[in-house]
């Protein structure tokens, strides 16, 4: 079984130790600290190819290559009520940036259920898993054809 990146696993273990109200509160707090993509990476209007398919919160994903071959992940969430998308973006950006791309590419998309719980609706999980899948795709691309440092996958 493929191990998850350490920071993500630690985060998940913390989440799973909390009861539902505390987990929800923690996710809301994380969403409140979500750092949107900096202007040097992307500015509105964001390109359609960066948009997460199936995400109704209109989330976008970018990956910035680093000299060591890892990626830094950035996100934008255009729906101000897209709190779950913001929380997930903050978690993915924080726990996967700087992680070897082979480890990021191996993350299962259903990690969203460990974060949000099993009771997610299909529509909601479609969007959230789409965010994970776009991060995985960027990592896979980095393994196959590494991006130049000024190329953010656009």
């Amino acid at each position, binding site marked *: 079984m493929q191990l998850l990146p350490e920071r993500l696993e630690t985060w998940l273990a913390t989440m799973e130790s909390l009861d539902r*109200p505390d987990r929800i509160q923690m996710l*809301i707090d994380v*969403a409140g600290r979500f750092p949107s993509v900096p202007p040097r990476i992307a500015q509105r209007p964001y390109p359609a190819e960066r948009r997460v398919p199936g995400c109704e919160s209109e989330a976008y994903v970018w990956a910035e290559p680093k000299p060591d071959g890892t990626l830094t992940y950035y996100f934008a969430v255009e729906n101000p009520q897209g709190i779950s998308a913001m929380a997930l973006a903050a978690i993915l950006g924080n726990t996967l940036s700087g992680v070897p791309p082979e480890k990021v590419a191996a993350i299962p*998309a259903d990690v969203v259920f460990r974060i949000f719980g099993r*009771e997610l609706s*299909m529509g909601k999980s479609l969007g959230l898993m789409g965010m994970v899948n776009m991060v995985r795709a960027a990592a896979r691309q980095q393994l196959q054809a590494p991006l130049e440092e000024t190329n953010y996958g656009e």
Partner: protein
Amino acid sequence: MSKSIEERGYSDADVLVSADWVQEHLKDPGVRIAESNEDPLLYSSNHIPGAVEIDWTRDLNDPVRRDYLDRRGFENLMRRIGVSRDMTIVLYGDKNNWWATYAFWVLQLFGHVRAKVMDGGRGKWIDEKRTLTREVPKYQPGQYQAPERDDARFRAFRDQVLQHLEPKLPLVDVRSPEEYRGERLHMPEYPNEGALRGGHIPGALSIPWGRAINQEDGTFKDAAELRKIYVEENKLRPSDDVIAYCRIGERSSHTWFVLTYLLGFNKVRNYDGSWTEWGNLVQVPIENPSAERRDAAVA
């Protein structure tokens, strides 16, 4: 400017209230405001002052069987949110009240007729910059004695859907056109709402639930616009025996609400087994236009 609810020509305008009405009744002891969302974080992030949360998975479903809560569970829910039998519950939520109408439908299985939906839902309340709070209210547990759940009037089961097929009674598939055509089944990783087969129940009309909504503000279209969609375009009649379905019965509860209350159809049932049941049943008939196109191409 959109028409007031009273001007829209609904059969039963009393089930729909405006955000202004809710604002005026925030402290009405006979009214309980309840938020029901798809996104599990939204209520805790903020909500209408005094509103309680009704969570569609934890509060409305049986935790073990695929069924809704029983009489005792419903009584406990009502007591927990401080509702007595004579109180009015006003539901609102995200996704243009998709989940609010689902909760409304469950309330009707227990005959709680003093129920309303706030037009435009959570999105309209926020867009109008009305007050929100993170404070979770605490209410004195209500005295609530519910009747046994009565599924007969508003709920359909698979055998009843099968019986519906032979005389070609109307079925309404409210999912997306891609799901209806069998082009999109479900996500491989998704554990709860998958189906082994794609397509739709034979003869079902495709009327996506969102067509009943004004996209600019999430309110319901007026009766004339709704009649155009359901009656003129799709030839449904208010006297028809209609069964609506989607994937797990939530989107179809929205259409059930529209047909039953806004257009005054006499007999509309929600098949909550929906595609997650039908698409997994052995030997039931299915129409799948995308598979038929593939077969034709191979031939």
